[in-house]
């Protein structure tokens, strides 16, 4: 994988209401380019809504979201994706009826330039793109430990491997920022550890990483910066170690223990 330049993400007073409920309330924070940023909060705190808003699947009622100084509020999710934003979903999303390999290959779709005519004519151009796609896929599958399952149906994968596949698929095209929606949910200790390593590697290649989760030890050990949300509002944001010491955060969310210890 060649290096890419991490994108910066800024949220400025973003608000989203569903009927009478304010799911996201005046949320502002910045994700530094090339960093690993965590968004922590209990369930129902508005985290997933934020993911939808940032990636364009829902439209904010107020505020601005910027990707590298370009406003993306109200832009379609496809255009946002083409600007270099990749994401995973909270629910497992294997592409049905397709193998593990094919899932990753779809992730590489944007690397193709061949249209209908060239694809039909099978000229040297499109055949080269096919070869490159295949090679990139093999490499990704190896890195994510999916080589043996390459030709199984993605939907048949064990849960942990499926989650890794979804990440591999999302970063295949070397996006500039990756949003992960609860990537550690349902993973055991070994898998969580492997996940952290993979994300550090992705970040090492230059991609900005924004992780949304509520597994506190995982988040604080992985992320450079952390933003804590509760009831749709930001209650703290900054360097991970400082946020962990913030008394407001400890009272509201971390409870009597501090980050780094096992919580209940």
């Amino acid at each position, binding site marked *: 994988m060649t290096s890419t330049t991490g994108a910066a993400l800024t949220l400025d007073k973003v608000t989203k209401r569903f009927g009478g409920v304010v799911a996201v309330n005046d949320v502002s924070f910045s994700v530094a380019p090339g960093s690993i940023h965590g968004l922590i909060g209990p369930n129902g705190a508005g985290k997933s809504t934020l993911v939808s808003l940032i990636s364009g699947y829902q439209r904010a009622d107020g505020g601005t979201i910027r990707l590298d100084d370009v406003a993306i509020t109200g832009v379609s999710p496809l255009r946002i994706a083409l600007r270099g934003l990749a994401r995973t979903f909270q*629910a497992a999303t294997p592409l049905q009826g397709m193998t593990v390999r094919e899932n990753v290959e779809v992730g590489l779709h944007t690397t193709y330039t061949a249209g209908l005519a060239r694809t039909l004519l099978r000229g040297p151009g499109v055949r080269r793109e096919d070869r490159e796609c295949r090679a990139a896929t093999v490499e990704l599958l190896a890195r994510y430990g999916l080589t043996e399952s390459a030709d199984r149906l993605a939907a048949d994968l064990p*849960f942990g491997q499926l989650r890794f596949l979804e990440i591999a698929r999302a970063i295949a095209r070397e996006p500039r920022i990756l949003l992960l929606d*609860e990537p550690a949910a349902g993973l055991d200790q070994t898998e969580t550890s492997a996940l952290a390593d993979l994300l550090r590697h992705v970040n090492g290649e230059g991609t900005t990483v924004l992780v949304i989760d509520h597994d506190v030890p995982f988040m604080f050990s992985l992320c450079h910066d952390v933003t804590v949300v509760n009831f749709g509002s930001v209650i703290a944001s900054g360097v991970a170690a400082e946020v962990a010491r913030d008394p407001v955060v400890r009272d509201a969310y971390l409870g009597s223990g501090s980050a780094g210890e096992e919580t209940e």
Partner: protein
Amino acid sequence: MIRRTIGIRDASVLGAALVAVIATLLTGSAYWTYALTLIAIYAIAAVGLNVMLGLAGQVSFAQTTFMGIGGYGAARLTATLGWDPWWGLVLPAFGAVAVAVLIGLPLFRLRGHYFAMATFALALGTNSLAVGAVLLTGGSTGIAGVPPLAIAGLSLGTPQGFLIVSWIVLALALAVFFVLSRSHIGRAWRALATSPDVAVSLGVPVLRLKLLALIVAAVMGSVAGSLYAQFSSFVAPDFINLVMIINLFLIVFIGGRGMLSGPVLGAAFVALIPQALSFLGEWQNVVFFVLLLLFMLFLPRGALGFDLSWLRPRPRDSSHPVPERTEAAR
């Protein structure tokens, strides 16, 4: 399921078809020459539908509209204007593509249901336009005297000529289907068929790809319509009526949607079974429709496709529920 290489079922069906065509050419059976030509023409239209439905997962009833454009286009260009029949085969396809883009651009932005229903209204609308626009289409009586294809003055209008031409065109259509299904376009189609949200997140241009599928389907539908007009030497609104609309779906479902040989097997069924069932008289159609429903329920992979995976219990409403975090998992 699209296989990487041609599977056993596809190979056997296509092999059997090839044998049948050759045998018919050698023995000169009039019935089989006619039947196989008709099968090929239906199959060409069905391959187009198979691209939309089987590959891209889009329900489009508009195939008969494209067949109508092809058929009436060929008729007017050749019978009325006296142009070379090859133009009658090729030019209407451009018209069909234009219509596909015109319809697709606004409608593909909508949820599947709206698109499907709109294409259904389009198909019925085209049928009634064919009846009503007498100046354009000759109304209920249609247009007669459509000349067959010719190469260098030599008419291919013999039964054998039609048989060979139609199966060559079908082979081309199948080749297009095969290449596309194995390509990155085919993968993107399959992704958007089941998970358009995920596809979008990967940067897959879903709208453009849906249009592409419709364009391919339009060309195939139009060519099938033109061939039909030249084969029957006339066109009338009946060839694009409701029965034809449903027949195309019947062909795709019985043959196995998404499968390469599906349209061939399905077309054979639809063309030949009525002979077997003709003793049922007016109950024929009823049996057909019931058959189609049964196929949709029990044999989603079509005849000889035997997919019994539906018998295995699957969780309802979701395929992979996210498990709750437990103590042990930490």
